[in-house]
């Protein structure tokens, strides 16, 4: 087995990737396209989390508990 393929998965990833810097350092080193995609993803991810957290409280406040159609 070659040196390249030795060790656990985590060790191999660490060898490939090297030390991970802070988020800001990583963004500064990224190509523009990838950086923009990461920012858009962060925004959409935030909105999805907001939706997940607040959908049920909003429904309960607006329509109350139980099947309310009418």
């Amino acid at each position: 087995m070659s040196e390249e393929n030795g060790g656990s998965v985590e060790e191999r990833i660490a060898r490939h990737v090297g030390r991970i810097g802070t988020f800001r350092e990583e963004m500064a080193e990224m190509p523009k396209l990838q950086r923009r995609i990461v920012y858009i993803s962060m925004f959409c991810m935030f909105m999805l989390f907001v939706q997940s957290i607040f959908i049920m409280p909003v429904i309960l406040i607006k329509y109350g508990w139980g099947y309310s159609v009418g």
Partner: protein
Amino acid sequence: MSALTERPLFKRSPAPGAANKPPKTLMERGDRYLLIAIIIGGSWAFGVFALPFMYLAFKYYSRAQKEGTLTRPWSVTIIGTFVLIDASINFFGWGTDLLWSHNTPLMQTLWPGYGKLFDGAYYIDYNSGPLGGLSNYSEKTLEVFGVLAMYPMRIASCWAFLKMKRWGLQGMVITSYMYIGFWFAYVANEYQDFSGRIGASAWGNIGTWFILVMYATPFVILPYLYTINKELFVDEP
């Protein structure tokens, strides 16, 4: 040795006993909390309880980065989390409408409530179709396809992507193309049945497009998946 890869077929040592397991790294702990947050958040009904787990995941990743034990770029974590929360909402959350849980008062609060806000199909004739839950056939078809086929594939691929496996990256690309087809079918369905769906909701077109844009993950991430250095992802099962 495998004739195809010239590598041993079984590379990992046999699973050690619980007593011999090495302690979990900070990143693995962060991943565990992230997964818990994603599952709870994806349920929608219990979304509020995901907040502390999200905080814990972020805290562990930050600590791992400071210690130098973080082995995954932040961008992979962000893209992976974005896809995972999307797939989780659609798998766990939407699954509650597909499965027998649609008979519970909790789901009869959540889904007709969602329907009145965003999509009339979720409250008009609710629980009156052959499968229960929403009774609009075109929406139900997409729900069955999404919950039973596409989103489980996407969750599995995304978890492997977060573990920096090559097949995870490939799975993300494949399921992104599936998702694009799904997304267009969804939009076409909604607008063909406008009066009974978008037109019958409180927030109309704005609410619908708020949902459609936030769930357009494949359009956002495909360029990233094609431009990322594939050598970062290990060729492991």
